[in-house]
């Protein structure tokens, strides 16, 4: 569905993505993990064409996403939902107005249908009581959940999650993880998740990829990840106290 073909991205002299090639299949949850500053968010931003690679091509269903322009790019972007690290809500709009924005601007749906879908999205993320609150009046975690409601309100085919659980308490983190799984199981949403949270990654991901120094040093299922011999993967698992029996014990409940 999404294919990175020898992507190179440089910021000045620093090469962030170094000849990165991989493919994400339709309907899977693909989790990108890795240390801070290795280019996980940069990878995600390329998928939404918020960044342009220095070389290489990004494909979305055999159409070049990295070369798309104007109406074609707009159409391709409409297939995505994007959850930003901080939620990226517009500060002068209420939570409900923020969530309704993509529907108001990009669809011709009647007002009552928009209100229904906004309510539905907010209920999914547990924010039905915060509809009239301004972003500044709610916590960082709630802002992130509101951002998630906005990302899914148009029922996109692909949702990109940039650190969906960072800064959240463990209970809310697991709620978000379950929501990602629920969207995948019930609606078949293809999900790309960037995270540091290995427990969540192993529990929800169909495939995981470890990004290190600009390229993937390990790509595999959670089981393959658990027995990986790659030192950085082992360090990552050990640092989060994830033992060998983590998956057998049922992962994160």
């Amino acid at each position, binding site marked *: 569905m999404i294919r990175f073909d020898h992507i190179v991205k440089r*910021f*000045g*002299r620093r090469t962030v993505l170094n000849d990165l090639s991989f493919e994400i299949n339709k309907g899977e949850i693909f989790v990108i993990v890795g240390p801070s500053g290795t280019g996980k968010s940069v990878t995600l*931003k390329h998928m*939404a*064409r*918020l*960044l*342009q690679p220095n070389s290489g091509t990004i494909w979305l269903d055999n159409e070049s996403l990295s070369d798309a322009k104007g109406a074609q790019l*707009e159409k391709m*972007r*409409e297939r*995505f*939902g*994007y959850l*930003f*690290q*901080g939620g*990226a*809500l*517009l*500060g002068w709009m209420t939570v409900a107005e923020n969530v309704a*924005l*993509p529907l*108001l*601007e*990009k669809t011709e749906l009647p007002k009552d249908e928009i209100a229904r879908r906004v309510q539905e999205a907010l209920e999914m993320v547990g924010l039905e009581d915060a509809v009239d609150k301004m972003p500044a009046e709610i916590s960082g975690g709630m802002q992130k959940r509101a*951002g998630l409601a*906005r990302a899914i309100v148009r029922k996109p085919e692909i949702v990109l999650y940039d650190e969906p659980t960072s800064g959240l308490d463990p209970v809310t983190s697991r709620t978000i993880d379950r929501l990602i799984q629920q969207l995948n199981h019930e609606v078949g949403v293809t999900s790309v998740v960037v995270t540091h949270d290995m427990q969540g990654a192993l529990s929800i991901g169909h495939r995981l990829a470890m990004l290190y120094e600009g390229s993937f040093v390990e790509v595999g299922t959670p089981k393959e990840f658990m027995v990986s011999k790659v030192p950085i993967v082992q360090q990552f698992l050990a640092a989060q106290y994830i033992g060998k029996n983590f998956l057998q014990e049922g992962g994160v409940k």
Partner: protein
Amino acid sequence: MITREPLHIPDDATWKQRVLLGMQWGIADVGRAVTMGGGALANITVLRRTRGRNEFFRQLYVAGIDSLPVITVVALFIGMILALQLGIELHRYNQEARIGSAVMVSMLREMGPFITGLIMAACVGSAMAAQLGTMTVNDEIAALETMSIDPLRFLMTPRLVAIAVMAPILSFYTCMIGMLGGGIVGMTQVNVPWPQYLSNALEFAEVKDLYVGLLKAFLFGLVIGIVACYEGFTTTQGAVGVGQATRRSVITSFLLILIIGYFVTRIFYF
């Protein structure tokens, strides 16, 4: 993408290469800013929609009402200073009765649009650049792009049109308040009665002075809006970047106001 990635000068670049690179970026900046301004104006039909119209009126309020107190005080004192200086000089030739026309012409042709432009660049343009800059570094602009909502149409068009419409209105208001200030000094310091001051002003002022002044103010408004939005959208590097974008927006607007003011005067009066 409307936002910009940070620009880098290679560490091993010679000073000649650095100067050339700086010039290249400067020219690219002008091109991008003009394209952005054109793109925003091309989307003017967005103001026919309820959301666009509401945002336009909100921006009119921000640009107009919020800067009114500063403009009132500055215009009043500029008019008073002009009348006082001219009164002292003209008194030596027994021509103090002519301060009305001198203040009127100065305000309409130059001081009105010029003061309005500078105050709007400092109050409205800086706030606009800071707001859009903060939105950029907080990924709000990127979020709009991922929703396929054009930031130019959604954010820039209402702001640009509002400031371009409000600038001539405020310029006219500045002229009137400046005239009032001149009249107060005329009556109290230079012994020119109000009716005489006013009739002298109206006798010498031309319609051309009015429309050229309003045209200048309109152009200043456009330039302030384009510069502020461009700087906001191209902000990089967090809070420091927002501060830099705001400063650049004010400085660039000030310089362009002076340059455009000169050329408009040159075209219409020479």
